[in-house]
């Protein structure tokens, strides 16, 4: 059931979001660990920004019902096709029950939520550094960047070449894709640093985008400070409400000489790279 928000008397400081039951179009394993979920979604929830997420009510399967919703980045939103895509790793109870969803079944989603990435007009050369499910979060950013005619380089890192998802997706969008993997011994911090420095030297970089690991955060903070390059990072945190009410999802940020706490679901998940703190 939907309830009217017509008389909504507050100046909305957030874009509208919705709770909707969507039909599963497909839900398939793309390798040993990752799944691609495609939902048929109504237009009102497809007005998304790269970096935003949905809060998913995992189905109950085999007598297990994960209680809370699970936050999941938008991997793709296609208003024309009426599709919403998620790329996820089955790690625990919630994502494992999600992996059992079959075409035709329904999934309740809440979103789009949070604030997405910024692409300033003056930024021309964008560099994405991503690993694991971080690729999911950054794919819509790549799409948007290329729509805006930016030059985009994506460094995709993974355990082994087989785990390098989305490389094709980035390439198809026209990005310049570089891959590094643990198994080939090319994904260490030093290797990455060299790769990025040469990128900066060659064509210049105006902004870094990343998500996830402490290691990448530290490296990019250092390079950003050194070269005066802007940056944004998408962070994760346990969530209950997903819409700013419960204050469980805070992260500490360094801002103006102080430590401040902001909600990943509301002020985030995307934060300024230099403000973000290791955890």
């Amino acid at each position, binding site marked *: 059931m*939907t309830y009217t928000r017509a008389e909504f008397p507050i100046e909305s400081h*957030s874009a*509208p*979001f919705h709770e909707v039951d969507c039909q599963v179009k497909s839900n398939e394993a793309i390798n040993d660990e990752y799944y691609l979920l495609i939902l048929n979604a109504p237009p009102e929830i497809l007005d998304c920004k790269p970096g935003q997420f949905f809060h998913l009510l995992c189905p109950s399967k085999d007598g297990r019902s994960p209680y*809370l919703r699970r936050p999941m980045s938008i991997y793709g939103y296609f208003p024309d096709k009426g599709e919403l895509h998620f790329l996820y790793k089955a790690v625990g109870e919630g994502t494992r029950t999600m992996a059992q969803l079959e075409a035709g079944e329904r999934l309740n989603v809440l979103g789009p939520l949070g604030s997405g990435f910024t692409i300033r007009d003056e930024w021309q050369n964008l560099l994405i550094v991503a690993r694991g499910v971080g690729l999911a979060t950054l794919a819509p950013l790549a799409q948007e960047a290329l729509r805006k005619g930016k030059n985009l380089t994506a460094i995709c890192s993974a355990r082994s070449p087989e785990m390098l998802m989305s490389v094709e997706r980035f390439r198809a969008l026209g990005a310049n894709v570089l891959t590094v993997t643990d198994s080939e011994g090319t994904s260490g911090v030093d290797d990455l640093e060299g790769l990025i420095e040469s990128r900066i030297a060659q064509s210049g970089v105006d902004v870094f985008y990343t998500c996830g690991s402490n290691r990448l955060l530290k490296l990019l903070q250092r390079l950003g400070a050194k070269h005066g390059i802007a940056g944004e990072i998408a962070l994760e*945190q*346990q969530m*209950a409400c997903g819409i700013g009410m*419960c204050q469980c999802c805070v992260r500490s940020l360094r801002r103006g000489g102080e430590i401040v706490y902001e909600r990943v679901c509301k002020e985030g998940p995307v934060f300024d790279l230099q403000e973000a703190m290791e955890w």
Partner: protein
Amino acid sequence: MVDLAVKIGSVALKNPIMPASGTFTEDLAGVFDLDLLGAHVTKTITPEKRIGNPTPRVCEVQGSMLNSIGIPSKGVDHFVREIVPIYQKFSAPLIVSISGNTMDEFARICEKVSVPGVAAIEVNISCPNIEEDGKAFAMRPSTTLRVMKVLRGATDLPLWAKLTPNTGETPDVARAAESGGADALVVSNTLLSMAIDVKTRKPKLGNLMGGLSGPALKPISLRMAYQCAKSVNIPVIGCGGIETVEDVVEYLIAGASAVQVGTATFVNPTTMPRLIDDLRAWLFAEKFQSVNDLIGSVRDDEAADSVVFMEAAP
């Protein structure tokens, strides 16, 4: 037409459904018209700015959750200046939840939030406080009586005392709150609990322990709501694990005049408006003209009086 209106002392609610403190902000207006609700209850605020507890602040347990948010707060001045005005745009009464580390602090904040636009003050006497060795005031009748008297002296607004399940003396605490000047009881807050990650062997909450809320809590807080309704003459507001209209009805039958919905809103943000619709439909189907006819209608006559005040499980 079924009449859903109830009164909590002098505060008139158009229906008995309202949010529980800490599980609601004006952000929910993104999902439905907040004026559908019987009242608005804000997150507990403290006199000074506070950061709150370390993360992770929530975790799941089977079919329910634990939280130890702590009480991050921008302080009472910010609240009165920035937040109270937001709720003036609604017609639902605004209930402000407050807490303080000492009786003195508590009294001070109680005065400060006694401003136009606030319909009642919910006093969260169920969180740990310094003066009492980290125990909550509402764990003992004596401390409950003392703090309620101090608060009663600090405001003319209705005072709703929010009780804790972390006690073996619920009926006594309820009577103490009433004697101390409470105008209603909110029953109840979360129950101290714990969960450990068996892989990392770390507590799942940054704060080690936290409060249980959600369906697992319902039989406990329903019991407390019943005990309170039997023990005092002021209205009782049920709270704990409400998800379905049957849950609401159970609390009302037990003697609650209204209910607060917390965790269920996290799972389904439209829970409250759905409960209002469902309650109307349920009362209609069961041929009630007014929700007031349901309140306290529990058929407990066969049970001996002494049983009502039983305080340990048999």
